[in-house]
């Protein structure tokens, strides 16, 4: 059993680990982004270690949330062990999806790397290799610039400039043992990121004050979403929104034309398509407890609405109500779908 305390840059070390795991048969597949034609990145389920030379873990841009890629084929545990190489927020969302019955984590090893953030999709489109600078918010998506949870998640993580491997769960430890790898001692040292995290936290707090003053209240929300064209892209890219048919699209829940006309008559006008706020606030009610502030909603929005910052702020509030943290230990119950006979008395009058 030779300990690995690599001095390589994190990426190649992680890919070596993945290749070794495949070759040894410790895993049947590795979920990792790969370079696609034209230079963008696409998630791939890799079974042949030779294919890993095109892999690019934690690529400069987040195109599809890794947890959504995982959920697309990991609903049940059959098919052997999987190693998923993810950003911390992707691992957290995977845990949430497991709580929502969409992923079975029984045979999945969630491995994360310290995440420097992601460049906006527009930047990535213009320059496929433009890289995020964790200390320079102008290179990052707005939510990445506020993110303080960019390290130390999942079953195991590769952290720090030397990419040392830390096992965070029994499953992670068992996986490394199978490969004959001794994980680094103790939990990942987070002190090295304390200054950056504090700065991010300050930025987040300031942004929320701004959001509340600018868009607080019903009128403010109306103004926030006035450019919304109802394309539902925010919902489709969201890793948490997995419903086959969203409540807003259900035929038997649609507002009949007569009612819309009546509304138009009463208020002088009605916006079409209707129910913009109903969609966004409804979505908040449904997914807020599991929101991992990944920011894909905002990055993908064609109308440049700061919906990610708003969702993140609301999520801070709603999870706070329940003392819950999205993506925390897999055994914890999710308030949204956990019903106890005796609960929530503190919210009664």
């Amino acid at each position, binding site marked *: 059993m030779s300990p690995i305390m690599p001095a390589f840059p994190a990426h190649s070390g992680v890919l070596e680990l993945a290749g070794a795991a495949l070759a040894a048969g410790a895993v049947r597949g590795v979920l990792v982004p790969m370079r696609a034609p034209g230079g963008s990145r696409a998630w791939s389920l890799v079974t042949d270690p030779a294919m890993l030379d095109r892999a690019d873990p934690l690529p400069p841009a987040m195109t599809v949330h890794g947890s959504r890629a995982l959920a697309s084929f990991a609903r049940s545990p059959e098919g052997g062990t999987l190693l998923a190489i993810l950003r911390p927020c992707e691992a957290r969302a995977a845990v949430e999806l497991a709580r*929502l*019955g*969409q992923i079975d984590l029984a045979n999945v090893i969630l491995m994360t790397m310290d995440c420097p953030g992601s460049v906006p999709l527009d930047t990535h489109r213009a320059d496929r290799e433009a890289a995020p600078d964790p200390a320079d918010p102008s290179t990052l998506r707005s939510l990445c610039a506020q993110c303080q949870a960019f390290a130390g998640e999942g079953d195991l993580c590769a952290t720090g400039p030397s990419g040392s491997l830390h096992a965070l769960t029994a499953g992670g430890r068992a996986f490394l043992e199978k490969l004959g790898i001794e994980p680094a001692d103790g939990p990942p040292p987070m002190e090295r990121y304390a200054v950056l995290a504090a700065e991010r936290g300050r930025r987040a707090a300031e942004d929320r004050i701004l959001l509340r003053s600018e868009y607080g209240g019903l009128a403010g929300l109306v103004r926030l979403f006035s450019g919304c064209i109802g394309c539902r892209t925010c919902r489709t890219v969201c890793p948490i929104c997995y*419903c*086959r*048919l969203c409540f807003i699209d*259900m035929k038997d829940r649609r507002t009949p034309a007569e009612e819309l006309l009546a509304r138009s008559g009463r208020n002088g006008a009605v916006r079409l398509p209707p129910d913009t706020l109903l969609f966004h606030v409804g979505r908040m009610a449904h997914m807020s407890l599991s929101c991992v502030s990944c920011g894909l909603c905002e990055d993908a929005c064609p109308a440049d609405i700061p919906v990610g910052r708003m969702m993140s702020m609301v999520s801070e509030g709603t999870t706070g109500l329940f003392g819950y943290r999205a993506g925390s230990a897999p055994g914890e119950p999710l308030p949204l*779908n956990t*019903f106890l006979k005796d609960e929530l008395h503190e919210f009664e009058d």
Partner: protein
Amino acid sequence: MTMAGNCPRTGVFVCGCGPNIAGQLDIESVAAAAAGLDGVVLAETWGLLCSPDGKRHLADRIRESGLERVVIAACSPRDHEKTFQDVCAGAGLNPFMMEMANIREHVAWVTRDRTEATAKAVRIVTGAVLRSAALRPLEQTGIVAEPAVAVVGAGIAGMAAALILAEEGRRVTVLDRSTEAGGAAVLAGNPLAVELRDRFLAEPGITFLPGTEPAEVPGFFGNFLLRPRSATGELFPIVRVGAILLATGCVRDAEGSCHPAEGFAVLAEMLRVETGDGGFPSRRHAFLDPVSTPVSGVLVAGGAGGPCSIGSAVMSAGAAAGTILSTLVAGREMETEPRTSVISEILCAGCRTCMTVCAYAAVSYDAERGICTVNAVLCKGCGNCAAACPSGAIRAKHYMPDQIRRQVAGVLA
């Protein structure tokens, strides 16, 4: 016979309930207000609609006016929903095209001011009329029950119940972990218990499987498929029964507290019977139905339900056997609740939240398809699953989104 347009022919009947309603609000005004609603072809008052005269009048009106919907503004559905449903059925109208508006408990009995009460009743009736237009006919269904019974546990309660059932001609299969019948009472040498044991072993209608317990029990009331397994793991052939009586007794520990027999928790989980304080099974009602669990067809007798005397054990065994005899009649079609939940297989994403809120073990998960399904026989129409489903994939028949929305719109109009 339908009116021009979309509105079905609706009759509204406002019952005075003697002085109960008529004394508290102006029923004539309520009827007059209802008469102005779309689709209402007839709106009238009556003194006591549940009386023989009242019911006859209702039936006559349905027939002669060709009513397609009936709205009855009266007491609580808990009192007379069945009454008026039967009248409708007798008059040729599907019983689920009848909507009750409770203007007694919800208005007359709680509102002092007569004007206010009348206005409120009008709103409630308007909601009911609008909702009724969206009602859909539902067919009453049933299943043919398997009259045989399984008893788990051959102690006092189990033997007593088995004997009652066998004497009434039922095939009874009794399982017990021990190789000897009789349980705690026989072990203690109680002479009555010994006598009971001898009769039990001699009864030809009882099949005793010593040294076995249930390995799995898929199925539902009227159709359980019980597979016994021996202590060595040998599996016995499946026994098909209509009801299961849990008579597994209880044990006292060193500190003197009583617990269900070891392994009861596993059995309860298999049958999806909820357990409460101390691990004992939940009952339909502590006083009115203490031998039935919330799961149809699964009953409890004797110490399995909590510490009790031998006399109580035998009495509860009798109660359980009696319940089984009267509900599980050979060849009888058992009415099932038509207002069940339906899960859309297209919309279900397999999160299984519905299963966690179903008290009747009516929802199961199909791992291959990754979706949940409702057993319409076991479903009691409580609607928990439809409310809890995060994806909106479940619809509660008779409480569909358009029906609810119309009712709300009517009340708020």
